[in-house]
């Protein structure tokens, strides 16, 4: 069918402040952040201080990272992977972004009545393989079934526990003016791979999702001895969202150079066709890192030596100017602001 479901096409920001949940609340951008900061955190009595990819807590003398994510990607199978891969790698990566070694995952399924069991089986298989590849164990889980009007195929929620080494202090508030912004490789890949098989929008592409577990890459980066201050995997909302969040949390500005951004041709072309900005497109096997000025070289070297960091490069710096704002120098030499996406250009991308 050649219909494009609305949700797959444009960013449904609310016309006016609505009293209801809109797709934009799930976009990982400003609306998601507001929902968390204004509705969830006050209700939970939690502080907005961290809001990192995972929480770091202490139990029984052990310093643990704890994170969770739900996966509602549509379609469930896309070039390069499936919802199962995302469900394992996504949570593994959130743990790794706190500098933790991921150890255990839980998996909770919400299945739509009528879903082919073979589909569920494929997803489970993918998860098993991804967990083995990531070096984590799937140790506990749950399954719920909802009637066909209340679900859509398979939703997966994973939570993960990781071990944080002594002295490791990585978090979004640690960036300082002068720090260097690194990215581990090509950006915009996952989003384009998923979009390419959205109904009505199908376009042929050679792009495969970059979903991958990054704990090993992070370990190599930490092992380089350089001062890695912030790590983030730029999933929903892309690099734009991640850098804006870090800029706000740390109270610094971020200055990027557009010509240094590693955007592969196929991503650039697809984004051009669809009217998207690669900086706002989701990645599932990449990280951005903010490192101390003197550490950039050694960290980059460690990244490039790792299979998942072969394309690593510096893309900008943190600055004292325009705190909380990300600004790019265009290829032509002009400047433009890289906005925090508001809602969601690409709903259900992960």
């Amino acid at each position, binding site marked *: 069918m050649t219909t494009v479901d609305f949700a797959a096409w444009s960013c449904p920001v609310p016309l006016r402040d609505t009293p209801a949940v809109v797709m934009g609340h799930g976009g990982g951008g400003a609306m998601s952040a507001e929902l968390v900061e204004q509705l969830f955190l006050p209700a939970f009595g939690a502080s907005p201080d961290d809001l990192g990819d995972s929480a770091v807590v202490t139990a029984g003398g052990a310093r643990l990272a704890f994170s969770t994510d739900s996966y509602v990607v549509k379609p469930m199978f896309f070039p390069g992977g499936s919802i199962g891969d995302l469900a394992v790698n996504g949570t593994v990566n959130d743990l790794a972004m706190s500098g933790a070694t991921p150890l255990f995952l839980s998996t909770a399924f919400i299945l739509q009545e009528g879903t082919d069991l073979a589909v569920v089986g494929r997803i489970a298989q993918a998860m098993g393989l991804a967990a083995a590849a990531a070096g984590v164990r799937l140790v506990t889980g749950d399954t719920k079934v909802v009637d066909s009007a209340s679900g859509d195929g398979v939703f997966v929620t994973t939570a993960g526990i990781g071990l944080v080494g002594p002295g490791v202090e990585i978090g979004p508030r640690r960036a300082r003016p002068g720090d260097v912004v690194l990215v581990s490789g090509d950006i915009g890949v996952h989003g384009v791979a998923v979009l390419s098989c959205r109904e009505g929008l199908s376009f042929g592409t050679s792009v495969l999702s970059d979903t991958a577990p990054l704990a090993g890459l992070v370990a190599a980066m930490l092992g380089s001895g350089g001062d890695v201050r912030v790590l983030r995997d730029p999933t929903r909302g892309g690099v734009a969202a991640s850098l804006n969040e870090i800029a706000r949390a740390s109270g610094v500005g971020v200055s990027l150079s557009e010509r240094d951004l590693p955007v592969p*041709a196929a991503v650039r072309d697809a984004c051009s066709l669809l009217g998207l900005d690669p900086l706002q497109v989701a990645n599932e096997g990449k990280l951005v890192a903010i490192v101390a000025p003197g550490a950039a070289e050694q960290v980059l070297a460690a990244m490039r030596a790792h299979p998942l960091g072969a394309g690593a490069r510096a893309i900008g710096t943190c600055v004292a100017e325009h705190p909380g704002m990300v600004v790019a120098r265009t290829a032509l030499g002009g400047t433009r602001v890289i906005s925090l996406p508001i809602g969601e250009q690409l709903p259900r991308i992960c």
Partner: protein
Amino acid sequence: MKYLDEFSDPVLARRLLDQIHAVTTRPWAMMEVCGGQTHSIIRHGIDQLLPEGIELIHGPGCPVCVTPLEMIDRALAIASRPGVIFCSFGDMLRVPGSGRDLFTVKSQGADVRVVYSPLDALEIAKAHPDREVVFFGIGFETTAPANAMTVHQARRLGVRNFSLLVSHVLVPPAIAAIMESPSCRVQAFLAAGHVCSVMGTDQYPALAEKYQVPIVVTGFEPLDILEGIRQTVVLLEAGRAEVGNAYPRAVPDSGNLPARAMLEDVFEVADRTWRGIGTIPASGWRLSSRYREFDAEERFAVGDLRTDESPLCRAGEVLQGHIKPHECAAFGKECTPRNPLGATMVSSEGACAAYYAYRRLELVSL
């Protein structure tokens, strides 16, 4: 992508900029007609790099922005009918109608679907013979051939449950209306490249002559825009009110003859209201009588629509180039992409949206 990369080359861009600087001796104000050009200019920072005296006035070439409020409201009414599948381009969903938009209506249960092409809507009609499928046919001359072909196919294949809600607008009458405005400061035009790919260039010499303005057909990539500006400055400096073509690879003088023939057959000229601007005579297309049976306005009687525009919104002035977006008091305050008051803040080709996305660093109010 072939011929996009080459026309983004920063070295050649520098060369073009240097030339523009070299040939500019006086201040000039030129209008880029097409919203896609506005977006490209702001996104790449071209306006920041031009000589101080060159002002780019953003034009009304954003079809989403100029679709009249009554037409949006009509779309909302039709989309809300049970049994209707209302198809549209994505941008239209968030354009404010009187108090609501297509997205709201969709979330309240209407079957509103975003399509990439009008042919997708026709496919939906074929797949759902029990439903009435309506396609929202907005756009300039660039998009009209697609809609024309689709309606033509609908008739040929006997697809009776398909109709078109037409709101096509034409560039040359808009140029004339801009020039007729007493407060007009425009001294030259960068004509819309892909409109001319279809229509050719033969409508422009008369306009250039009548209003004594250079008109240069211009593309969308950075080098295309810079070349369009360069040629325009050269003409302005020389006092020559002529038509130029800075986009020859995609614009032959005759445009696309098969497309023009189809347009002749399917559409006829009509007066059209441009949102925020007003009615410009003979500035739009409606379905010709031969195709009137596919006209959604005829098929769906939606009764009187009481339109309700935001009193704060000055989009009409933005579209006519009288003000820049940030000169609107609501810009960035009451009006943001999150809570847009006008279409120019919604559309990816709207000037307000472009300024908000890319220029908040420079704009004091933010």
